[in-house]
């Protein structure tokens, strides 16, 4: 008789029924959480962000003091509109933002956006010649890159078009690092305006406004 196995007591269940039931419920919950995707991305909200982004193209970053502030104001306005639309659609669909895929989506967005805010603040603290140079040459690419990273990360828990657009933002960022300042403003508009418009209209058509 093997000595490395405990004796079998077939009449006694190894786990009590209620414990096993709790394990089954936990398994169901975990599986649902892993497979859930966040579908409450607001189509019209993203379109509105795109329109605001296109308006931002009017601010020429080669006059850094005024334009950086104007672009930041644009970003805050677009973020506010997008955030409000996201909340509204989530409430309409009954999708919680504080748990499950909604929470993962929001938590995916935040770190890269915070990193962008921190770096912008750091650039703003640079002494005059370095500040102008960094604003003109770095900020547009940096904003596009980190926003792309935010979308790519959050998109892992949402519909496939979101990470695809995130990759588009990152590609624009790479181009922005290579072209002269005036072109960088156009790329900002193309990204925050054009890509948002395309994304928003796609979401409206495919998943509803």
């Amino acid at each position, binding site marked *: 008789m093997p000595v490395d196995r405990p004796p079998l007591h077939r009449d006694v269940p190894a786990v009590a029924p209620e414990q096993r039931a709790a394990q089954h419920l936990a*398994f169901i919950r975990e599986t649902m959480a892993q*497979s*859930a995707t966040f579908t409450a991305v607001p189509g019209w909200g993203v379109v509105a962000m795109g329109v605001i982004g296109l308006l931002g193209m009017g601010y020429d970053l080669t006059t850094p003091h005024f334009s950086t502030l104007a672009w930041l104001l644009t970003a805050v306005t677009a973020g506010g509109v997008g955030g409000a639309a996201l909340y509204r659609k989530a409430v309409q669909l009954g999708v919680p933002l504080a748990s499950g895929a909604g929470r993962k989506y929001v938590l995916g967005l935040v770190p890269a956006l915070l990193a962008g805010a921190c770096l912008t603040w750091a650039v703003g603290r640079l002494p005059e010649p370095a500040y102008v140079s960094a604003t003109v040459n770095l900020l547009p690419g940096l904003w596009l890159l980190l926003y792309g990273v935010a979308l790519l990360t959050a998109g892992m828990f949402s519909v496939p078009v979101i990470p695809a657009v995130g990759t588009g933002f990152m590609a624009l960022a790479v181009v922005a690092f290579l072209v002269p300042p005036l072109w960088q403003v156009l790329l900002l508009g193309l990204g925050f305006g054009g890509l948002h418009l395309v994304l928003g209209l796609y979401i409206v058509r495919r998943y509803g406004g």
Partner: protein
Amino acid sequence: MADKPRIQRAQTRRRAATTDVFPVALDKLIHERVRLGIVSALAATDALAFNDLKALLSLTDGNLSVHARKLEDAGYVACRKSFEGRTPRTEYSLTEAGRAALETYLAQMEQIIDLARGHE
């Protein structure tokens, strides 16, 4: 080959042990862990592609096919086959019957827990 009856007896004992543990009659079709995983995963989303479902539940192609077919035959899961370019794509979604079965199963699990609490 002489071991076959012994294996069958062991499988029968195992099945009996699984069902006898619970004081309520469960839907055996979704009580099985892989099928429960498939139904749970599909309950949280509109549809899932074969490969996504396979990766999510860490299954092999054959294992997922067999269990998904059983659920499909029972009307719990709908299967849609299409082509993406030249690549075939199989997508599964939960039917109303499947969702109702999962809800019943969830209610039964909660009932078992409540019963145990009642005895304490």
